[in-house]
């Protein structure tokens, strides 16, 4: 067994007696992997404990907590999943007071697959694996090397392939609004493919991910058209850091800028750096 998996199993076995269940990944008989709630009543299920491919587990926590608000749970989190639950907590989507986070540190190979700047956890008290540094994001760098005109062409070429499956929204753990602007005819008309320009679906989603996106790249992974939309979210996250000093997932108590009321004159308009 993989060393990290073995260590994770041991940590889970240590935590399990003290909680109602632990959210992790499980492989089924056909070799397919999905999120699962491991419970002490079914210890044999831990034989199927898995770690990759990752899944949007912050949403699993939200689903379970909606039905069982007081449940005492453990949860295996990678860096992005931890950032995910932290931001969801700030937006009142999950309650972390009863949750023990088990931080699973990502490998270089995994981080490269994700083009991840932070493949490690920051809050979990229990951790498994050795944290590594972030890796470069050649896709975003390649985009930044383009001229303005080339960038416009690039997005036109990419977005014309969108089939409006809504997968990027559905899978995103930070997309949890009860009423979604992407289902509002005013912004995104039904019955149009390819999407008319400007691509309101994508512009609206980019705006709504401001100071929210935790860079898990589930949206890109789920996209049947391989659209590298996380480029936009990453660049916007850079702007948010520059303008408001805010980074998702870093602190438990710092409010995201969209939840703050800014005093007049406190911020100056600097112009967008990109």
């Amino acid at each position, binding site marked *: 067994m993989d060393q990290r998996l073995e260590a994770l199993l041991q940590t889970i076995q240590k935590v399990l007696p003290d909680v109602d269940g632990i959210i992790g990944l499980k492989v089924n008989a056909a070799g397919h992997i*999905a999120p699962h709630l491991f419970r002490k009543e079914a210890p044999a299920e831990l034989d199927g404990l898995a770690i990759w491919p990752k899944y949007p587990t912050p949403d699993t926590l939200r689903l379970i907590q909606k039905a069982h608000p007081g449940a005492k749970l453990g949860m295996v989190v990678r860096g992005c999943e931890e950032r995910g639950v932290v931001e969801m907590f700030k937006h009142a989507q999950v309650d972390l007071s009863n949750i023990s986070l088990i931080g699973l540190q990502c490998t270089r190979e995994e981080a490269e697959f994700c083009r991840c700047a932070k493949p490690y956890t920051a809050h979990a008290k229990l951790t498994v694996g050795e944290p590594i540094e972030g890796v470069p994001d050649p896709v975003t760098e390649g985009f930044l090397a383009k001229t303005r005109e080339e960038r416009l062409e690039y997005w036109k070429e990419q977005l014309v392939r969108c089939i409006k499956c809504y*997968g990027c929204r559905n899978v995103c753990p930070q997309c949890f609004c009860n009423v979604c602007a992407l289902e509002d005819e005013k912004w995104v008309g039904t019955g149009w493919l390819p999407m008319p320009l400007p691509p309101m679906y994508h512009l609206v989603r980019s705006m709504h991910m401001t100071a929210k996106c935790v860079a898990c790249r589930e949206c890109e992974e*789920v996209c049947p058209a391989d659209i590298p939309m996380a480029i936009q979210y990453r660049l916007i996250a850079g702007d948010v850091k520059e303008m408001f000093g805010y980074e998702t997932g870093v602190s438990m108590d710092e409010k995201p800028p969209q939840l703050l009321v800014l005093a007049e004159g406190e911020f100056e308009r600097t112009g967008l750096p990109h």
Partner: protein
Amino acid sequence: MEYKNVLTTCPFCGTGCGFFLQVLDGKIVGVLPDKKHPVSQGSLCVKGWNAHGFIYHEDRLKSPLIRRNGKLVEASWDEAIELVATRLGEIKAKHGPDSIALLASAKATNEENYLFQKFGRAVIGTNNIDHCARL
């Protein structure tokens, strides 16, 4: 408290995308694409993403309906199949097998569609077989 994912095949078209049904306390609460599925590789179209929507829908038919005196009334499968067989038999006897056509479905499996055309050709005796996508 129980949460698990059950692997299944999308019921909407013949592509055969794979996804998990998220099951919370015995109730299906959502769809999650299967990243390791050889066909869909972690993606779905808008129909697959909403495939769980009809399961508990109040409009969902749970038994066959037979039109009696102009009104659709619930019936058993045996009754429904009996009626279809009798009526098809009558139509065939009166107008010949080519008065009947069969429209196969993308929602059915390959094997079901094979049986369906076999039924048309070997049992009814017609080559009038087409597919719902060309309706």
